């Protein structure tokens, strides 16, 4: 029987890696990958807690919704990235700088 804290450790690692990705990457798609890592870590937490900390399956339900929302979010994000790419020909966040005057 694996203890709860090991799952939390993995999740913490994923979360901080996600944060690292978000902070250090300048490519929109890459940032999205970081976000996916964060969402996965949260999901892992939810499922782990659902197993160890609650009697129901609330955590799993939450995770299902998170997965669905993540899919929708990525779809919209990529649509925006594509549109931006058409206008700018880059997805590098630093080059999307008209707004920074």
């Amino acid at each position, binding site marked *: *029987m694996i203890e709860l804290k090991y799952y939390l450790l993995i999740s913490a690692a994923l979360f901080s890696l996600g944060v690292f990705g978000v902070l250090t990457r300048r490519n929109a798609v890459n940032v999205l990958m970081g976000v996916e890592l964060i969402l996965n870590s949260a999901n892992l937490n939810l499922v782990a807690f659902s197993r160890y900390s609650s009697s129901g399956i609330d955590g799993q339900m939450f995770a*299902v919704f998170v997965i669905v929302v993540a899919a929708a979010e990525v779809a919209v994000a990529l649509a925006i990235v594509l549109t931006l790419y058409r206008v700018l020909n880059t997805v*590098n966040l630093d080059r999307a700088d008209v707004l920074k005057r």
Partner: protein
Amino acid sequence: MSVTDVVFILTAVVTVGSAVVVVVSRSLIYSVFSLLFTFFGVAVLYVFLGADFLAGAQVLIYVGGILVLLLFGVMLTHRLYNLNLTTERFQPIAGTLIAAAVFVSISLAAFKTKWKLVGDRELEPTTQQIGEAFLSSYLLPFEIASVLLLVALIGAAMLVRRRTDV
């Protein structure tokens, strides 16, 4: 150390290791493909946690949907036939420090916090429970999620359409 432990450790190493590749690799394509292993690793962890339906959904949606979308994003926003899909890095030191701080605080929390723990439960298939929950206590979220998907569909379709008229 039992067989389960070994498998668990392996999964954990693969999951975290590929996640490291995701955020460290300079090649976008490698990032995306190693994300595949992260997603799979998480799905296996779900299986460990007895969430079989969720594991299926994770693979189905993350690998079959999100990963493919990301791949499309990578390929459509670069010169398609250019192998050097690299990405510039930005403030690696600050990023490392912040991420390390986050990791330390959360893992401390993970180890030191007194989580609410209920007694050990028998692993049982959750598919049916999830289905029932969808139609009872989680009916409203279920419906709202569908509205959300509808909006995302409308929005994404609108954004990628090229012409201004329909």
